[in-house]
């Protein structure tokens, strides 16, 4: 607890500007927010370990993210970026470690995954939205239905309310005209923006992106990145696994560099690019620039 407080305080010093909130209702949660000028920790992963069979993919990965931050995760292929991201919303079950998001926390300690754990994960996922490299829109439903489905069946919100919210979100990602089209008829960029709208419809505290633009050509990718920047300006907390170094450097508040299942370095973009502390970071950035 003490460590946590000090860390938040350090975070405050590093990021003195407070972001406008994405949603006023959600900021008024029970989490202790500390001094008025300070920011609130919205996600905390502690010592996440994960193996597939005997292959250790994550070794003691810890990360703290504050509300409104945009954190990019970079690193060589196969280093565990996706696995880490998927551990945050329990699409992948970590072997050990603790994930805390907003006021929900799950601690894993090697044991089997029980249905009570699944119930906890269900609570925790309510705070998290996720966007996939391959979009994963529901092909049998219109874009509007894609956005409306989860709020309707998970949250049981009245259909009229859902629809107006969904149309607002589609407008926000520039897809109001495509509301009644089926995903197969959209371009990749449009599909990914629809997927973002779909995730936002659940009013998450944190958005996770796993290589959101890797399947897109650069011009189309820019549409998606622009949506992410706009969300950042609104104060959405976002964690982005990406190979797009330009975006990572320009848009991130912090960059996480991973290699072989470990976080090697966390730094401000400029600091990481101009003055990487670890030789492996320097090597990776050198190779990818």
């Amino acid at each position, binding site marked *: 607890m003490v460590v946590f407080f000090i860390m938040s305080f350090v975070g405050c010093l590093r990021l003195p500007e407070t972001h406008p909130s994405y949603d006023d209702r959600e900021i008024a949660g029970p989490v202790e927010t500390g001094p008025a000028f300070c920011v609130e920790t919205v996600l905390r992963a502690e010592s996440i370990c994960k193996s597939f069979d005997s292959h250790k993919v994550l070794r003691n990965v810890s990360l703290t993210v504050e509300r409104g931050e945009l954190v990019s995760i970079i690193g060589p292929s196969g280093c565990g970026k996706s696995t880490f991201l998927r551990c945050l919303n329990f699409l992948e079950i970590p072997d050990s470690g603790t994930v805390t998001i907003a006021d929900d926390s799950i601690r894993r300690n090697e044991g089997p995954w029980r249905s009570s754990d699944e119930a906890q994960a269900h609570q925790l996922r309510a705070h998290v939205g996720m966007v*996939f490299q391959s979009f994963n829109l529901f092909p049998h439903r219109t874009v509007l239905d894609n956005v409306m489905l989860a709020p309707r069946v998970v949250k049981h919100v009245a259909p009229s309310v859902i629809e107006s919210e969904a149309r607002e979100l589609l407008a926000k990602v520039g897809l109001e005209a495509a509301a009644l*089209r089926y995903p197969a008829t959209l371009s990749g960029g449009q599909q990914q923006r629809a997927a973002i709208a*779909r995730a936002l419809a659940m009013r998450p505290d944190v958005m996770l992106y796993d290589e959101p633009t890797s399947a897109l050509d650069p011009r189309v990718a820019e549409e998606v990145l622009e949506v992410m920047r706009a969300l950042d300006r609104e104060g959405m907390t976002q964690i982005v696994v990406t190979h797009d170094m330009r975006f990572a450097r320009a848009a991130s508040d912090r960059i996480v560099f991973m290699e072989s299942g470990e976080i090697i370095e966390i730094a401000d973009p400029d600091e990481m690019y101009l003055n990487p502390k670890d030789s492996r970071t320097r090597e990776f950035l050198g190779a990818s620039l």
Partner: protein
Amino acid sequence: MRKPVWRAVLLAAFALFIFGAAARADEPLRWAADGTANVPFTFHDPAEESHMVGFEYDIMQEIGRRLGREVQFTQNDWDGLIPGLQRGFYDMVADGIEMTPEHVEALDFSRPYYMTTERIVVRRDQAGLDSFERLGGHTVGTIKDTLAERMLRTRPDVTLRSYDEESNAFSDLRNSRLDAVLLDGPIALYYGEADPDFRIVGPPIGHLAYGIAFRKGANQELRHRVDEALQAMIADGALHRILARWNLWTPEMADWTGDRSVPNIVPTEWEHYLASTAPARGWTARFYRYVSFLPLIGRGALLTLMVSGCAMVLAVGMGLALALTRRYGPSWLAALATLYVEIVRGTPLLIQILFIFYGLPSIGIRLSPFVAGVIGLGMNYAAYEAENYRAGLQSVARGQMEAATALNMTHLQALRYVVVPQAFRVVVPVMTNDFISLLKDSSLVSIITLTELSQTYVRLSSTYFDYFGPGLMVGAAYLLLGLPFVRLAKLAERRLAVSERRGGRH
């Protein structure tokens, strides 16, 4: 529109079930025979199809009258008669069962009620086959499990063909696939002598006695009372009168009973039979005869539809459960589901239906024929549907489940709203095909006493020796029943195509 129809079907099935159960309660004298084309033993009156007639039927009615009990006839397939007796579905079987040493070993018998011999029947123009010895070098047909078959087995020089249905033997005789038929006297008379194309030749061969069969060791009391009734019927000439009406009083009967009287009795039943099966002459007569088949075919079609409909509902529900279990269930349950699918797909449907109807009573599960048929067909098709659905579920990308989970849907919600609807589109074309073949496979339930469409065909065609007209009519009925599914498949495909194209037109 869809719902009320299903409800009606289910309701009807339920009513049938209840009716079956209720009939058991007031304890009439229950006996069984295969009344399908079983002339002159027990059969449907060609002039009035809903009416059972036959010399055995008359004898059983007379016995019931003498015992002061209501008589209840149960239709059962020949092969199922004895298993059904042993399961206690009824108390007695009277269906020309010979009192051979093997039969007497396995069953209890009443005293004989009929004595007869084997007779040779040939085409009217055929000469020279007029004794058992002279059958050598020829192809001879008979009914399986008869004295005639056993006798012919001892003759390596005879090419033997054994049939289930006497009508098939005679139709092969007519088509010259057989040179002669050797059969029990009553059959030879009614199928052979009654038909202008055939005649009985030569002297009587062998000797056989028919008795009423009871389950071994059970019902001693009833058996004695039946024996007394038969004895009385012989003494007062009632048996003689019944047999004379059917033109079936034989010298063997006279020797056995010592009754050498010649009562002044017109063979009314024999004449009635000759009159009503005489080939319809001219197109109008033929037309009216076919029209008279319609209610019967309609009834058969209704039963086929009800059995198939209920079986389909079962197959879809159970198939989906099996498929979901195999893909998403805990591993031990998935293994069980796999085992089920493999067993069901690896064994014949016919065996499964017989097992459910005749086998399960051994462990105390007694089902009405309708319910047994529905369960047999439904559980069988469930295995095939399960495989179909599993392939459908597998065709849905993994990412879909992940996206739904990330949106905080529960497993069930993800299946219901995301995975299953997508799998459904892959599955529909195969499913409609399965439904059509289920409709056709439903003919197998005829072996557990259900007179559905195909059984109606067997009955009509063998009664009138007309396989052509009834065949066309029954075939048309099957096509008509299948039509909605063909339409449904088309409709479903079109709707899916539209939903995939719709966005493009904006």
